[in-house]
């Protein structure tokens, strides 16, 4: 404290934000593995993969908390503090949803996914994971923008945000088709309920990514 300049500089929240995004991405990839495992009848690792997702979700939570806890009153940032908090909350919903999906499967693992739905469901999972990856890049590029304030960089971030929007729309189409198919094929009501809910949970992931993108858009607005 003898040197006031030292105590003026607080650890940047952007480093933590990026770390959180990477953790979320890791969590999403583990989720994909878990789902692939669940799809194939031979794979026995579902339980371990689910535990992996759960622990990654907890780690992401810890990062979120450390960002929130390390911004003392009177901190001035290049974005609003509560803007940042709302953003982390949105970004942190993604691993929550991923965990929810695996929990939901865990509650009723049998009889599994009907063969005729597997392709579309995998497609939905893929597009969800894709948009999470996109979110990770978005945070990285936004961080760079706040360092340079460069117009080209800003357009790059805007481009990524646009792409999250497009991905959300594509995922919506797949989700709608899946729901239609669930009603078309002959299933017992419990299975219909189970599948419907699962599709909805997975389908909400790109929605949250899109929201996160919109928040970043507001942050980089001039």
């Amino acid at each position: 404290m003898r040197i006031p300049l030292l105590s003026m500089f607080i650890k940047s929240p952007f480093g933590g934000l990026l770390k959180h995004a990477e953790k979320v991405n890791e969590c999403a990839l583990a989720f994909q593995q878990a789902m692939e495992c669940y799809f194939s009848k031979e794979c026995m690792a579902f339980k371990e993969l689910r535990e992996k997702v759960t622990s990654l979700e907890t780690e992401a939570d810890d990062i979120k908390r450390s960002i929130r806890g390390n911004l003392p009153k009177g901190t001035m940032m290049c974005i609003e503090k509560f803007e940042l908090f709302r953003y982390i909350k949105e970004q942190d919903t993604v691993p929550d949803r991923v965990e929810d999906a695996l929990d939901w499967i865990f509650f009723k693992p049998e009889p599994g996914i009907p063969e005729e739905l597997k392709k579309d469901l995998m497609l939905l999972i893929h597009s969800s994971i894709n948009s999470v990856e996109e979110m990770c890049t978005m945070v990285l590029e936004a961080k760079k923008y706040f360092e340079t304030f460069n117009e080209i960089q800003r357009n790059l971030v805007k481009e990524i945000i646009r792409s999250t929007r497009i991905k959300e729309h594509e995922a919506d189409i797949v989700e709608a088709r899946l729901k239609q198919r669930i009603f078309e094929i002959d299933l017992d009501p419990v299975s219909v309920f189970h599948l419907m809910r699962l599709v909805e949970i997975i389908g909400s992931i790109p929605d949250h990514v899109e929201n996160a993108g919109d928040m970043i858009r507001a942050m980089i607005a001039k």
Partner: protein
Amino acid sequence: MSTQYYILIAGYILGFYMAWNIGANDVANAMASAVGAKAITIRQAVFIAGMLNVVGAVFIGSHVTNTIRKGIVSTEILVDPHIALIGALSALLSAALWVSFATWKSLPVSTTHSIVGAMIGFGIMAGGFSVVKWSKLAAVVLSWIISPVFSLIIAFVMFKLIVKIILSKKDPFVWSLKLSPFFIGITVFIVILSFVFKTPLGKTFAMGNLTALFLSLIIAIIFGFAGMKLLSRFIRNRKAGAEAIFKRIQIGTSCYVALAQGANDVANAIGPLAVIYFLVKTGNVGAEVPVPVFLLLFGGIGIAFGIAMAGARVMETVGKKITTLTNTRGFSVDFAAATTVLVASKMGLPVSTTHAAVGGVLGVGLARGIEAVNFRIIIKIMLYWVVTVPISAITTMIIFKILQFIL
């Protein structure tokens, strides 16, 4: 007669100690942005700060020293040289004690404020309240409020300007190279001006104010374009961007900061010493003779000693802790702080280099240039700011009474 010489020797020791403290603690504040932005290494910082603090102290340091010497306490009324001597020594001792305490307890205390407070205490004890030049003191205190704000505004404007005309452009590298003569030139202009405008050096060359202004402008333009040539020769990698250019320019601005610091802070160490010196040598404080160069040199060397002995360790911490500062930001902070301090020095106002640097960082922070800055530091600084002056004044009074009893 011998007591007087003992007091003079004690004054030299304490003055050196104060200078040492400025070098050991305050220099880190001044060099922090350059070291933090990795524009210069710690070793370079120590070297630059050491050399240029001496230069600044010797060539530009006399104005502020004169303010401390005869600006705060009305010297004509100090009839008894014995009392005045004891008073000046108490002032130096009390400031040194308070600064040591602050270093020990890690408090953000300014050496400038300590010495001004001590001088007030000295004035009150030596000649009563009427001896203190309250109007001049008001100007000094006002400058403490104005200088960080001034620095904040310059840093804010400078950084916004850099964003507008360089960073946001399609090719920031080309633009920063193209505009580098402006950034180098403006820095050189103020530095040269401070050397020749109303200084003994300027008088030696028989330069009028207009000539000084003109000369500084010419030199600044030459330096600006020469700097651009050098930059374009050394930095070939366009990918490095604007930051690489400003990294080189920042080497220059860190020299600028060190110079300004020497010019302003040397008075904190040798202001009261100058009082003792004049009393012993001429029997009166208010002599119209300027502060002898060797005293300024003595103070400058004391600062350089402090930097060499303890500065490196402090700056190492700075480099590790300040990681979010880039070169364009560092340049804005350096430029704002140094300009503020140098302008204040020319006006004979003892301002705190630390506060100017803090103001600069806040300015860039307000311009949204730094990812996270703690603004609450201002409140803490203000608190110690308000506390320092009366504490060192009262300590001076107590020491005065004790010394009066002994001597």
